[in-house]
């Protein structure tokens, strides 16, 4: 009841001026009609993921179409992204990790493009949803765990047994390692979703303040600054997600420290 009352209050406030709806931008809504959201309902999630696919196709397929010796601008960006992720996989995971390069590239491109698209005004940020990031993090976690056991058999368990530590400490460390191993997907997914959500919500809060004439300039300055920071965060979070995936992959391929 109480929430209902507050909502009504804020609705009233909307008419008077200052009102905060920082979380409204994250609502999943059906694109057509107003029915319940089923599994296959076409929602704003569908729209923005489709736009993500479109941007990736435009950049990586259409942009890199020429295969020129001297690249065009779009081709340069595509090659930069390719080289960036390729080198990251090679450096972190090693040569034998390059087989998994397309998977990591898929994750990286999806996250970085979705993050940047989410920065557009009125956009819906798919990566700000824990449902999205958790699926990716769990996929990475399961894939890496299965791969570890397939490649190394039970030897994969040595990832928890730190042979360089003193023998007395090893069981305790093993316990910590096991816990940290299972926390990985949680931190992996919440880091991305949390960063995206927080940044967008903060921008929205500042935007609400812009309605008040007196503090509008400061608010707009703050939005600009936050926007710049969010642009950086969008890239960094995609990078962090990808590099952590590489690190987990390395553990699976080479469990012996």
């Amino acid at each position, binding site marked *: *009841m109480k*929430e*209902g009352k*507050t*909502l009504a209050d804020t609705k009233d406030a909307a008419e008077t001026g200052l009102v905060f709806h920082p*979380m*409204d931008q*994250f*609502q*999943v809504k059906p694109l057509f009609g107003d029915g*319940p*959201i*089923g*599994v*296959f*309902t076409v*929602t704003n*999630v*569908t729209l923005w*993921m*489709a736009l*993500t*696919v479109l941007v*990736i*196709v435009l950049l*990586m*397929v259409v942009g*890199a*179409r020429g*295969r*020129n*010796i001297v*690249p065009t601008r779009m*081709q340069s960006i*595509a*090659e930069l992204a*390719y*080289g960036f992720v390729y080198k990251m996989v090679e450096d972190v995971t090693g040569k034998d990790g390059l087989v998994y*390069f*397309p*998977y990591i*590239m*898929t*994750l990286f*491109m*999806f996250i970085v493009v979705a993050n940047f698209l989410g920065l557009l005004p009125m956009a819906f940020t*798919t990566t*700000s*949803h*824990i*449902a*999205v990031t958790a*699926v*990716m993090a769990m996929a990475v976690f399961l894939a890496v765990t299965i791969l570890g056991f397939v490649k190394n058999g039970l030897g994969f368990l040595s990832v928890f047994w730190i042979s360089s530590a003193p023998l007395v400490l090893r069981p305790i460390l093993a316990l910590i390692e096991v816990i940290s191993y299972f926390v990985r997907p949680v931190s992996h997914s919440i880091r991305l*979703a949390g960063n995206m*959500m927080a940044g967008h919500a903060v921008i929205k809060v500042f935007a609400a303040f812009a309605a008040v004439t007196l503090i509008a300039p400061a608010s707009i300055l703050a939005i600009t600054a936050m926007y710049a920071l969010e642009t950086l965060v969008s890239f960094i979070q995609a990078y962090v997600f990808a590099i952590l995936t590489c690190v987990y992959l390395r553990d699976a391929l080479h469990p012996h420290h």
Partner: protein
Amino acid sequence: MATDTSGAAKAAESAGMPQLDFSTFPNQMFWLVVTLVIIYFVLSRIALPRIGGALSDRANAITGDLAAAEALKQKAQDAEAAYEKALVDARAEAQSISAKMKAEIQEQLDAELAKADAEISAKAVEAQAKVAEIRDNATASVKTVAKDVAKELVAVMGGKADAKSLTAAINARMKG
């Protein structure tokens, strides 16, 4: 108020975090999987081989160009060496030719000089002979003239000079 419960619940949802609205999870997961599968196939089938190919093409082109440049540089160095060698050869040949010419000229000059010397000495001998002859002739004329003058003088003085003693006297006088 009781009829308001569903509205209130909905309000609570919208006031809270849409991220924790589990009713939208299956939808999001479904579309995420569709999206990731599409991206994966687009990237692994089309984009990544193409970009990787372009990158390796470029690397090959660069290494090829560098090798070609190295070969051309080597060629230029060879050409320069050949040019230097030709220059040295030409200079040596020129020097030998000029030495030969000098020797030839010297030889010719020596021959001409010898010839000229011989001619000059022959002419000198001839001239000396002529001078001697002239001098002899002159001496003889002087003797004749002296003999005649002496004979006349002796005759004028009333003496009689025989030719023999006169000649002896003149010869003795001409020697002194």
